[in-house]
């Protein structure tokens, strides 16, 4: 007979669950509202979502206070783990989501945002991601990952046109394969250590001195494939361009930022101890993967004719850039990862929002995709401010100082230099130069070509509403004046990362 278990509520440390519970409750609330009164306007749901996220943000703030005073907190049978990484990444997840959700308030109506389920899905996604980053257990990571992924597949498909279905199906199918990889990898680690908690895995492996190197390598391979798929590392990246192209620009922007940071945190937790424990293979392979991701992402971006697709490939390249931080694996590089991602979030938010506001329902004559380069021809003449803003985001993405992303690149490259990865730093530098070309290509179209006949500036902001403009304005300010925020951000991130032991 089993003994009954008595557990006091205090020892559960329910507080660690609050940040994830709030979006779940919010999502349920939205579903309930829809049940009681259908046909409500999307503005309501956007507002509710925003409020929920806002509260979520507040709980994160208090969690960060807890962390600052007490250090790492575990709770709910040690399943939840609130450390610096979890807090920073949740800040990014929730913060970025707060900026992406108002994009639903576009001037034109699109299918997904017209239905409350979309907002519920959105919040579920966020909750799933939050669970992923705030735990040590491969099980919870898996469940959280799948929760968010399933919601994301649905949201993509809800855009409701052929390309988005195609994107969703592709993403889904490959995601299923990746889930297989993930479970296989987790199984190997479990077989090795008898545990699915990363901490425990690390302890056991260290204790037996990596005696079963073969098993460790197999487990790492499968994990790398699964996580690599989610962040889009070459050669697991093939979903990214199609999915970005198929989903709406707002969704694509969201995809390029929010889910990836969660995976990065998982990767950081999982690979950090492996890299530092002398699994040189991982270092070599990660090196190869990082370099090929950066380079091939860039090279494929060079030949794109659609801006959104180009941004997809560029996101792949950026992911490779950030993965390098995990490869380097010092406190500085891990801080750099978060810094980079925050700044990347601002810039990419802006860039995708700019695409979003220029979204037309019918494709103009002679264009095969929503955001072909030709569409932006001569933008400076017909719509100068829009062109300037778009140009600004492109320059920031290219890493031109003093715009936001430059500081991220600077810090990551610095961490590479500091840890002796000189060649990697040079590869990063040269890749930034290659990347310059395709960002410049858009600028060339906007600033140096003449508009196609009959084009007016109106088409560039045909989908613009006040909310979208405000978001873009915010992104612009963030991108230009990032330099002011770097110091506090850096201090905050470094302290949190360092105190989490990474």
């Amino acid at each position, binding site marked *: *007979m*089993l003994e009954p*278990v008595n*557990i006091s509520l205090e020892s559960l440390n329910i507080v660690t*669950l609050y940040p994830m519970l709030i979006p*779940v409750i919010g999502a349920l609330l939205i*579903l309930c509202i829809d049940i009681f009164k259908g*046909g409500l306007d999307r503005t309501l749901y956007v507002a509710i979502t925003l409020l929920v996220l806002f509260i979520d943000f507040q709980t994160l703030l208090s969690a960060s206070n807890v962390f600052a005073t007490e250090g790492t907190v575990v709770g*709910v*049978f*040690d*399943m*939840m783990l609130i450390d610096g990484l979890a807090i920073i990444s949740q800040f990014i997840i929730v913060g970025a989501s707060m900026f992406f959700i108002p994009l639903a308030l576009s001037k*034109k*109506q*699109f299918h*997904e945002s*017209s*239905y409350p*389920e979309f907002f*519920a*899905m959105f919040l*579920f996604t966020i*909750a*799933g991601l939050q*669970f992923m980053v705030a*735990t040590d257990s491969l*099980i*919870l990571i898996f*469940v*959280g990952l*799948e*929760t968010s992924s*399933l*919601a994301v*597949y*649905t949201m993509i*498909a*809800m*855009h*409701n*046109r052929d390309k*988005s279905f195609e994107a969703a199906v592709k993403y889904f199918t490959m995601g299923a394969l990746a889930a297989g990889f993930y479970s296989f990898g987790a199984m190997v680690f479990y*077989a*090795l*250590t*008898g*545990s699915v*908690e990363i901490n*425990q895995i690390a302890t*056991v492996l260290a*204790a*037996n001195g990596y005696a*079963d190197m*073969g*098993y460790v390598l*197999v487990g790492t391979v499968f994990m790398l494939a699964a996580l690599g798929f989610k962040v889009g590392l070459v050669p697991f990246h093939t979903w990214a361009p199609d999915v970005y192209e198929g989903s*709406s620009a707002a969704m694509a922007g969201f995809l390029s930022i929010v889910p990836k940071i969660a995976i990065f945190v998982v990767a950081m937790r999982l690979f950090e101890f492996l890299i530092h424990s002398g699994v040189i293979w991982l270092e070599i392979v990660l090196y190869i993967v990082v370099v090929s991701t950066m380079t091939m992402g860039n090279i494929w971006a060079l030949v794109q004719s659609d801006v959104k697709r180009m941004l997809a490939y560029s996101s792949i390249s950026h992911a490779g850039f950030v993965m390098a931080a995990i490869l380097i694996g010092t406190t500085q590089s891990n801080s750099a990862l978060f810094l980079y991602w925050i700044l990347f979030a601002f810039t990419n938010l802006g860039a995708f929002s700019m695409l979003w506001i220029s979204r037309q*329902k*019918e494709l103009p004559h002679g264009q095969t995709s929503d955001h072909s380069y030709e569409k932006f021809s001569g933008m400076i003449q017909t719509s100068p401010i829009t062109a300037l803003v778009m140009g600004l985001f492109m320059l920031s993405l290219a890493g031109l100082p003093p715009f936001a992303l430059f500081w991220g690149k600077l810090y990551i490259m610095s961490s590479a230099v500091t840890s002796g990865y000189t060649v990697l730093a040079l590869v990063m530098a040269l890749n930034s130069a290659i990347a310059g070309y395709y960002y410049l290509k858009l600028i060339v179209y906007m600033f140096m070509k003449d508009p196609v006949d009959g084009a007016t500036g109106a088409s560039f902001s045909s989908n613009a509403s006040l909310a979208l403009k405000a978001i873009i304005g915010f992104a612009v300010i963030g991108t230009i004046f990032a330099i002011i925020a770097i110091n506090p951000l850096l201090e905050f991130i470094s302290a949190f990362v360092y105190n989490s032991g990474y």
Partner: protein
Amino acid sequence: MFEAIAFYLFAFLTALMFFITVTTSQALHALTALAAGMIFISAFFFILGADFLGAVQIVVYSGAVMALYAFGMMFFDTTRDVKEKQGNKYIIAGLSIVSAILVVLIFAAPMVTDNITALYPMTEGVGNTQDVGMVLFTKYLVPFEVAAVMLLVAMVAGIVLAGKKMDASLTEMSEAEIEEINTRELS
């Protein structure tokens, strides 16, 4: 002895069933083979003493999932022969076999599992289901709840995607058409 015979028997059967699943051109055969494979897998679970898991396997897979797939098959009208253009078979076979061999090579080696302590040990004299329940509702409470959320998501997703909401695409309609629909609904 019995264990070995059972293992090899079911291993052979499972592999065969799954092999049929992935190779047959008859969708119905594939479905049947898959269902059979699932059942055989549950046999492993029972052999390994994971009774609860075995039950769940039968209920969820052979019950729910298979039923879903069966409905799907009917809906998609794939009861006929499935014609599939095949690409390069060597790539497929090569990749799979290589991966299998590589992993098997490693897995064939014995593991150094001396110092593994079971974190959530099975309790002597207690049924597997009870045991599982204990762990599930303490340690794995959160994942369990999240899994519930996930199932909710899947449900909502299924409803949304398969429901009427997706029939007319607002994305592809002009604003005027959307207005028209809205006013019609209101009136």
